[in-house]
């Protein structure tokens, strides 16, 4: 099987996975009571009407009286045509609400991802090259610190220091500043720092331990005997094989943080990103928006894993495209 076939097969698997998740989401949603219907019934009861009739009308209005399979097909069509419904709590389409959230999430996620991918392996390999020196211990201490401290707590502490005491960043994220401006970079630096410390720890540890093995490999002696400089030897002969197992860690760490901690960090720093949109939708019981956010995170996770699989095969030529 060639690389093209492999990629096609992998993409199709990703589609199947997302389809399964979409189906499970639908079933959960169908089993749960609809807040709109409940609200209509409550409203009717308060105004002296018949709550049962009002509930029935509300169900009819939203097509909930249709058979399950019809609703399922309708739902599927909506999901894949990006017709994700109306976000009542924000009075705008769900896709628009998510796009607005993504606009702010991307502003800190892109620098955060780039910094993690660049700095994590570099510091890890540097650590391995200077193993058990004070530099290594410093990096290791930093890695464990970032790994151990909860992001939202670390965020609050830094916000207290830099937002309240030193007053260098706004306590609540200022959406009025242009995206590419110094003010925006400054106010995003602390949330990005918090997230980088959270994700870089595992990346540093894995790259340090993997490269510690490769820097003593026989092919490093070959490289040395060829007259390759230490810098080049580390850049080519240690970094490259290290990136293979590391790609799994990087994607896993970034996704886990993106789906979990970024929500908390957005809440702490008041960034109106995807996490905050989801959080507010949950509070407001805006089912459509919660569903939309769930699907968005699902697709991001599936896409991330797809990228990881593809990167893996590109990085390690020994992984064959067969049997998978």
């Amino acid at each position, binding site marked *: 099987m060639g690389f093209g076939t492999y990629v096609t097969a992998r993409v199709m698997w990703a589609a199947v996975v997302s389809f399964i998740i979409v189906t499970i989401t639908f079933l959960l949603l169908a089993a749960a009571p609809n807040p709109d219907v409940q609200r209509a019934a409550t409203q009717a009861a308060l105004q002296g009407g018949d709550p049962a009739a009002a509930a029935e009308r509300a169900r009819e209005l939203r097509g909930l009286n249709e058979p399950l399979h019809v609703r399922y097909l309708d739902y599927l069509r909506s999901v894949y045509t990006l017709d994700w419904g109306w976000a009542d709590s924000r009075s705008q389409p769900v896709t628009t609400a998510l796009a607005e959230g993504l606009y702010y999430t991307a502003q800190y996620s892109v620098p955060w991802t780039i910094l993690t991918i660049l700095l994590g392996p570099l510091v890890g390999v540097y650590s391995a090259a200077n193993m058990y020196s004070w530099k290594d211990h410093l990096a290791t201490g930093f890695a464990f610190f970032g790994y151990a401290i909860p992001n939202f707590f670390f965020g609050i502490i830094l916000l207290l220091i830099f937002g309240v005491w030193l007053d260098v960043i706004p306590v609540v994220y200022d959406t009025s500043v242009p995206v590419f401006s110094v003010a925006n970079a400054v106010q995003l630096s602390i949330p990005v720092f918090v997230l980088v410390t959270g994700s870089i720890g595992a990346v540093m540890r894995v790259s340090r331990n993997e490269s510690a093995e490769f820097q003593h490999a026989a092919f490093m002696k070959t*490289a040395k*005997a*060829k*007259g390759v400089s230490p810098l080049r030897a580390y850049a*080519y002969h240690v970094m490259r*094989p290290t990136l293979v197992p590391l790609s799994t860690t990087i994607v896993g760490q970034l996704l886990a943080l993106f789906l979990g901690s970024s929500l908390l960090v957005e809440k702490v720093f008041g960034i109106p990103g995807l996490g905050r949109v989801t959080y507010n939708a949950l509070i407001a019981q805006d089912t459509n928006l919660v569903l939309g956010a769930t699907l968005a995170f699902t697709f991001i996770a599936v896409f991330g894993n797809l990228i990881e699989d593809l990167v893996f095969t590109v*990085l390690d030529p020994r992984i064959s495209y067969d049997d998978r």
Partner: protein
Amino acid sequence: MTDDASPLLAVEGLTTTFDTDDGQLVAVDGIEFTVEAGETVCLVGESGSGKTVATESITRIVDSPGSVEGSVRFGGRDLLSMSEPERRAIRGYEIAHVFQNPQDALNHCYTVGWQVVEALQVHEDVADETARSRAIDLLDRVGLANASTLFDDYPHELSGGQKQRVMIAMALIGDPDLLIADEPTTALDVTVQAQILRLLDDLRREFDMGILLVTHDLGVVAAVADRVVVMYAGKVMERGSVLDVFERPAHPYTRGLLDCLPGVGGTEGGIPGTLPDPLDPPDGCRFAARCAYAEDACRTGEQPAEIKTDPGHHASCIHYRPDRDESVLEDAGREPTGSDRGADELPNDGVSTDD
């Protein structure tokens, strides 16, 4: 002490020490030998005698806790006193290495062609296409079929023998004056071993380079060597031309080694005993504890200084001192029984080593 005016490689007083948790480990202890241009010198000795460390000390590629002292003169320059960048310019370009195990010696993430070309491009500013065609020429020259397609293969797609040929091509692409081959055939099939050795010998002639070949296979030595250096426990026991060493082995250790050859010595069991502890080497001759001819004088002081037994043939054994009678070695060695030593301690008894 060199036999020629200016040999290609002259190693003198080479000492390599590793600082370990248990103390100073002197892996190579003041050894001396030379390699002339275009000749093959074999470094022989049993496992753990410091052969590999000795070869890696020449271009100073020993692993990090190792410290190298002494003098290694290569083409009039001292490799040990020059700066690391200067040494790097020589490694892989003027002095190339081929290692014991080709399975791990290539990086699994890069094509073999990339790795061969790297050896050239770190030294010369060569265009990619030129480097590629030179590499393919060499891959073809070292006996790899379909060199142009193999160039883009990854190491895991090659057999052990093919990988070792790639390693040889990689070593030769800089047209080195000296090739250091550290047991290049040990990890390979017996049938492939002979091919690789023949290839090295052909290439030596074609490229007019000196070869320092590490081996513990005396059959290989007999086949390819011009001169032999016998190492034991970090010291040189004997060195000389292959004819001298095989015909008139001087040091008792060399005699013991030759006796181990099937069909030559005909003895079972080899040399009794094991190598001394490298962290705490014994006084006197390193081999004394296993030597059938050792006397009290062998067990005190330093390793005996090298003594010329023939022109260009040296041995580190006190029995060759002018004030001593070296025939004691012959007598004791030839005596079937009747000595005060037990037969089990002396399996060499009654066996002639030089006929």
